[in-house]
């Protein structure tokens, strides 16, 4: 079931990322929905799931854009590994943490993409426009990542991949739902 949810989430994220418009004030950056999905698996799910999600999201991003195949897999894997290593140090449940990870990862991803694509002459975007796009992506990443986390959690809980808070309370006799 985890695989099915992951694939559906990634397909929806891909189509929406292509379809949703970028705003010129944000450098026409696209909503980094695929990155948000990777971050969800990195911060909330086992590392194996993160690795698979990072590779698949990378392939999807590369096939729907002009980026060379495999490049985004490496970027997503690096971001995913870093985020999953940090998860014991941060409060993953907090929206501000998710927003911070989303913004930072989106900024870094766009900077890496800009440096690579510019150095290989695949784009002719100026440094200013590239930085504007990276900043725009950071803003969008900060906004959409908590939203994606909420949606993914709801879907995962509804199909039984993860336990709802109330179920945890019932099963373990604690007060996890309220204390959280």
């Amino acid at each position: 079931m985890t695989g099915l949810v992951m694939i559906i989430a990634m397909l929806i994220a891909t189509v929406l990322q292509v379809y949703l418009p970028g705003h010129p004030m944000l450098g026409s950056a696209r909503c980094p929905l695929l990155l948000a999905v990777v971050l969800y698996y990195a911060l909330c799910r086992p590392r194996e799931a993160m690795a698979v999600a990072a590779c698949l999201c990378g392939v999807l991003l590369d096939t729907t854009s002009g980026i060379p195949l495999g490049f985004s897999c490496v970027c997503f894997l690096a971001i995913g590994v870093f985020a999953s290593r940090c998860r014991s140090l941060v409060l993953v449940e907090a929206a501000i943490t998710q927003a911070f990870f989303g913004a930072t990862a989106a900024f870094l991803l766009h900077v890496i993409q800009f440096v690579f694509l510019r150095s290989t002459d695949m784009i002719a975007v100026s440094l200013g426009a590239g930085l504007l796009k990276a900043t725009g992506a950071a803003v969008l990443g900060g906004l959409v990542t908590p939203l994606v986390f909420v949606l993914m959690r709801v879907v995962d809980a509804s199909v039984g991949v993860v336990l709802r808070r109330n179920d945890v309370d019932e099963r373990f006799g604690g007060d996890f739902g309220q204390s959280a």
Partner: protein
Amino acid sequence: MPSKSYVLYILLVIGVLVLLNLPSSSTSSVKSGARDNLAPFHKVVDFVASSGSEVAGALREIWFDPEDERELLKELAQLRRRVSELEQLERENDELRRLLDFSKRRAGHMVMCKVISRGDASGWWEIVRLNRGAAHRIRPGMAVISADGLVGRTTNVSKDTSDVLLLTDPLSKVSCRLNKSGAFGIVKGQGVAFSGRADLEMITSANPARIDYLSADKPVYHGEEVRTSGLGGVYPEGLLVGRIGNIRTDDSQLYLYGEVTPAADLNGLKYLFVVMQ
């Protein structure tokens, strides 16, 4: 005995290495296959978005009015919606007639396509995706025009879709000639303006493109038509690109450059023609 996780990680690393080292022919076939498979999803999202905006418009008419007038306003909203639909149909009819007329004039040389999505997932390229590809004999590097003028050229072509790099992408360069003065120049895309807008057509408005290397010896007129020169082998001669705006002299004083406003409405691309050569 290695654990399952290690086997998975090793497989993923091997997979990524294979992807990174695939020959370009295999890479393009993988990308084409993925684009063809995702095309129906784009069509569904496009349909849902256009229907959703209509329904939202009708609901807005009802929700934002006082309670006692709700029924009348509901009826009024329905009638307005109907009028709006009819107006839209009329506009579409006019546009299709115009396109048909345009298509007849250049019959046999073009393939008519519909825009199914705008922009790529990474946001680094200004492209639109068309619903026709190699199955309709479209190849990379073909000129793409609308009824108003040049739009760009095809880049990645799969069996059922083609990507069009827009005239306003910084990678785009078109050899052009001014209609009146006859001066030659290169039109380059200038990317996206900071002050543009992102509207329902799902594309951002672009800065005017720029024409460089105009001879300083020839007089250049404001508002003059810029047409393709036919040099370079990609764009046929005589396609309208746009009109020239502000003209300035380069720092070297050797040539002029000026802003070019594209003739085609790049914000509202719906139907395009791929020029077959």
